[in-house]
């Protein structure tokens, strides 16, 4: 699988990571190399094989439906780089 530069940029956009031109070029060959290498999985016959969903067979846990935590607005915003009272501050998103 050869990844072109446009694909690298599209993926970076989806991942919300700004990349420089130099990074785009480097990533193009690195990602192609890794994807070519994982291509060997196509040798494996996986017809009628169920995909793994959990390594240890356990039943999904259930608990009583009640509030066990919360009421910690100070804790929640404490590490925010920009905050106002109990709000996270972001650039304006609605005109």
């Amino acid at each position, binding site marked *: 699988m050869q990844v072109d530069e446009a694909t690298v940029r599209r993926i970076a956009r989806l991942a919300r990571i700004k990349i420089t031109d130099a990074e785009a070029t480097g990533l193009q060959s690195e990602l192609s190399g890794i994807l070519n290498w994982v291509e060997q999985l196509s040798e494996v016959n996986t017809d009628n094989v169920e995909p793994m969903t959990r390594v240890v067979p356990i039943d999904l846990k259930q608990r009583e439906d009640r509030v066990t935590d919360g009421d910690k607005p100070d804790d929640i915003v404490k590490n925010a*780089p920009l905050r106002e009272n109990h709000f996270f501050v972001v650039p304006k998103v609605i005109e």
Partner: protein
Amino acid sequence: MTELTRLTLAEARDGLAGKKFSASELTKAFLSAAERANPDLNAFVTMTADHAMAQASDSDEKLAKGEARGLEGLPLGIKDLFATKGVHTQACSHILDGFKPPYESTITQNLWDAGAVMLGKTNMDEFAMGSSNETSYYGPVVNPWRRYGENGERSQDKLVPGGSSGGSASAVAADLCLAATATDTGGSIRQPAALTGTVGVKPTYGRCSRWGVVAFASSLDQAGPLAKTVKDAAIMLKYMASHDPKDTTSVNQPVPDYELSLKQGIKGLRVGVPKEYRVEGMATETEALWQQGIDWLKSEGATIHEISLPHTKYALPAYYIVAPAEASSNLARYDGVRYGLRIPGDNLIETYENSRAAGFGAEVKRRILIGTYVLSAGYYDAYYLKAQKVRTLIKQDFDQAWASVDVILTPTTPSPAFAQGEKSGDPLAMYLEDILTVTVNMAGLPGISVPAGLSAQGTPLGLQLIAKPFDEEMLFRVGQRIEDAAGRFPVTDRWWLE
């Protein structure tokens, strides 16, 4: 009296119980050893000296009153991946700049409840992604071991301690703490253990709570101890493991007293040796050590059986789909809004993009992008679904093997510690470091690495044992036999004190 920092965790526990020294003296000795070594080894990213001395003083009171708990007054290193309330927790990434969690991880809380002392947070590969501890935002960790030439001359090459738990491994090997917490997603406990002459245990998936441990690949991540001896690792795991309602994958099974398994013999035990683990490029000394391990176990009365795990070679490529896919999803939370680094942009999306560009290192970006690619529209079935099917086959290989063997013996790594910079330019060469450890994560099994010999250049080599799910006792039982036969491998040449 023996130098305090040279003691094993079990010896220190006995020494405290016998009032040979106090928890405060012990803690002070480790703090000063760490302070002295850290400029050279870079094993700790932050020291919590005041906190440690306060904990030690509490422990001394408890010891005086005869109320000592299981780990009373024993100083530990904590990997920077574990949330510790009010203390540096950044997964050694720039993007978590200044993050101090308002909560404590379940595992570290278990340790403090047992009386342990926190010396500081240990260095690691950024977000646990790496096999050499060269991707940390806080710089590479140096292995306390050095290579020696034929004439016995010490090489000046700085060796890597392995990764991602390189700071924990280096700190334990250099006697900067009694033991340390670590995590293993593809080999991140066992590979550094092998490269530093320490014991590392990756428990069964679900044995230790993942709550409060920064997530990398959630279906593979599992925490465990790095320690000086098999016994120390057994003691540590006993207190780290628990059932935790806050982690839905944590398993509700009683935690055995692992120390009790150490004295059990192995007569009649069936040991499997998988032929597929004789990988290309394995060092001849590694092969020789493997044979030595087989001979040791045979002489203790175990029987040796060649087994086949046919899908072994596909574990690593499947891992490099599953792990980046889960990482790309887990790391989406680092957006420059709720915590950590923020680099403003003209709009919200640009703020995300700028923050993540500046905050993540090259290896983390590479894996997020691979993960985003394999999960993107049209590729999900070809990559992620295919890899999860291969994972089922890998697990089936093991399930079949357990019909004829009780435990599996392999080397931990194909070769001993390498020098800084030797593999960091080639992602694929670095990924191959985990070729013998990653199958265990893919199948959710427990594994241990026990130091078992030295390379021709005098650096440590490890043997790996793999057991059935929740049979950690088997790892300690057989691991102890290897340690008895091989002896221990403490670092004797403390070049950083010169």
